[in-house]
């Protein structure tokens, strides 16, 4: 972090990886050297020269020196960011926001539920869990994507499912003839058999409707609201609670979130257009 949190730190793209249609992962290094420390769930404001800034969750390994962000091209700034190439400069402010509850998850079963690009902010959780696998109970990832071609980090997840002690369960909304896996919404993957409901921490990331239904299903399976966490998203301009854009009722998502415990935000999520 620079002395003034509003001024970006200069970084350089060292790798640009095409993930899916309109989705790339940028690997970044600070021009000044050194390492970038963050906690899983935190985000940075990424700046593209001449275009502007957007909040993007960190999607890489917290133990690694280099910084990784997975970005979908949905607007002018994200489009420009996805077109950066190796050697291009980029500005980074952060890390900001509250992280996933990894310490609280120790000694418990861990359930992750991701929808679409919501997989990106949850990947650092998987890295962190695998680094200290013995500290956690059963780890299950439920991941719903639109189609087989929209499964983010597919090869990596399949590999982790086979060899790294993570129960990876993927479903798609729309299958193709070659798809042999589950079809349907992510909640249909969830089962009591996968975790000890009374001793589980769940982390959800995806569209709000997907998170609400996932939480309802987990509730039904015995996981209480106080053990369910989710990552919220709003317009952000500053990342430090000064610009006012990311308010959700009495909270600022940049400062009090993006990761919330469900019982803190559920009443707010139920109010339309808050």
């Amino acid at each position, binding site marked *: 972090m620079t002395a003034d949190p*509003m*001024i*970006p730190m200069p970084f350089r793209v060292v790798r640009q990886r095409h993930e899916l249609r309109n989705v790339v992962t940028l690997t970044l290094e600070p*021009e000044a050297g050194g390492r970038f420390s963050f906690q899983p769930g935190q985000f940075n404001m990424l700046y593209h020269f*001449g275009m502007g800034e957007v909040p993007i969750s960190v999607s890489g390994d917290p133990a690694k020196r280099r910084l990784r962000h997975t970005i979908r091209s949905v607007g002018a700034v994200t489009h420009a960011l996805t077109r950066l190439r190796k050697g291009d*400069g980029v500005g980074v402010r952060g890390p900001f926001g509250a992280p996933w509850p990894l310490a609280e998850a120790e000694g418990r079963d861990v359930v992750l539920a991701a929808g679409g690009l919501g997989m990106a902010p949850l990947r650092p959780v998987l890295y962190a869990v695998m680094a200290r696998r013995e500290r956690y109970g059963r780890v299950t990832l439920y991941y719903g994507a639109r189609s087989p071609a929209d499964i983010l980090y597919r090869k990596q997840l399949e590999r982790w499912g086979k060899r790294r002690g993570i129960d990876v369960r993927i479903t798609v909304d729309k299958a193709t003839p070659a798809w042999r896996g589950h079809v349907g919404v992510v909640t249909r993957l969830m089962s009591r058999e996968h975790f000890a409901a009374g001793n589980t921490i769940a982390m959800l990331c995806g569209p709000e409707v997907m998170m609400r239904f996932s939480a309802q299903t987990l509730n039904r399976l015995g996981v209480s609201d106080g053990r369910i966490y989710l990552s919220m998203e709003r*317009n952000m301009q500053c990342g430090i609670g000064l610009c006012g854009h990311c308010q959700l009722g*009495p*909270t600022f998502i940049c400062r009090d979130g993006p990761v919330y415990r469900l019982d803190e935000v559920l009443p707010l999520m139920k109010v339309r*257009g808050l």
Partner: protein
Amino acid sequence: MQADGSNPARVIFKEGLQVLLDRLKAAGYQVIGPTVREGAIVYRPIDTVAALPAGIVDEQAPGRYRLGEIRVGEQRPLFAHVVGPDSWKRWLHPPQQLMWRAERKKRGIVFVSASAGGQPPRALLGVRACEIAAMRIQDRVLAEGEWPDAGYRERRKGVFIVAVNCGRAGGSCFCASMGMGPEVTEGFDLALTEQVDAESHRFVVTAGSPSGQRFLDVLPGQPASEEALRRAREQTAKTAAHMGREMPADAGSVLRASLDHPHWEAVAGRCLHCGNCTMVCPTCFCTSMEERTALDGKGTERWRQWDSCFNASFSYLHGGPIRNSGAARYRQWLTHKLAHWEAQFGTAGCSGCGRCVTWCPVGIDITEEVRALGTPQETMRHDGG
């Protein structure tokens, strides 16, 4: 009253006020004060007492603001007005601010801080109690959080505040019910109470800081008598008793309980979503960032400017605005100001200045809206409200 029994307050006259301005300027301050521009009283740099709105009074009501003249005998009071469309926010949290510059070089992007330095410290003349309260509210937001705004803190730290106790309440004023005025009690360097009658035009001046006291001690005038101080207090108390409006005491809990109230649709039907209320509000702090690139593509500037939660783009997220109805946007403004601010910053976000009431083009009065929202929903439905 000081330990030795002497009274540090003084009575000064218009000439004394000019001496104060001169001394502030000599001490390096840029003096900002109320002055008339385009039919309204605004806060701009002033050099002399002659720039103050002598004999001007403002008539205010929901959606209405008119300047008129006032005389007391031959005297023309300088502070008979209350607050106008401008606020001190303009000088402490400016409408537009350059945050930094960047250049694209071979070795990546170079960021250069646009430091807030280089501006003189400012003396603010004519600051009302509600406006000091508004500054204290913005201090909590912009200067006292985990990530303070460096520019705001710098500008705020240097200000010298010459406050004025309001001699009358405006038609939209409700500071008394917010507990934020009209008596100036803290957060000032000097406080004036203007006393005008047919024979004389004087100011009872008290100091609120050691720095204020040093200025006060050398002003031409005379020590204030107990009688003069008592009259000043009575005058301010009378102002408190004549507030144009009153905010219900339970506004925060009313709003927290009415997020789904049908009245939001009713008020949104009147609201033009113009954002005037947020622009004139002395506590509204929301901003957006803007990229201003040079034509040659080599340099760029990052500007921050006031934004309003009434703009649809304010809550834009890929796909569209989160608050995509007028009702949702009106609800955001009012619940933030009067309910959620409390949870965020430990204080109400409203000082009761009444600007939003006066400057709303359709005259929406937030004190009335809170009362309507406090009405049980069933009643609203039956009444067709």
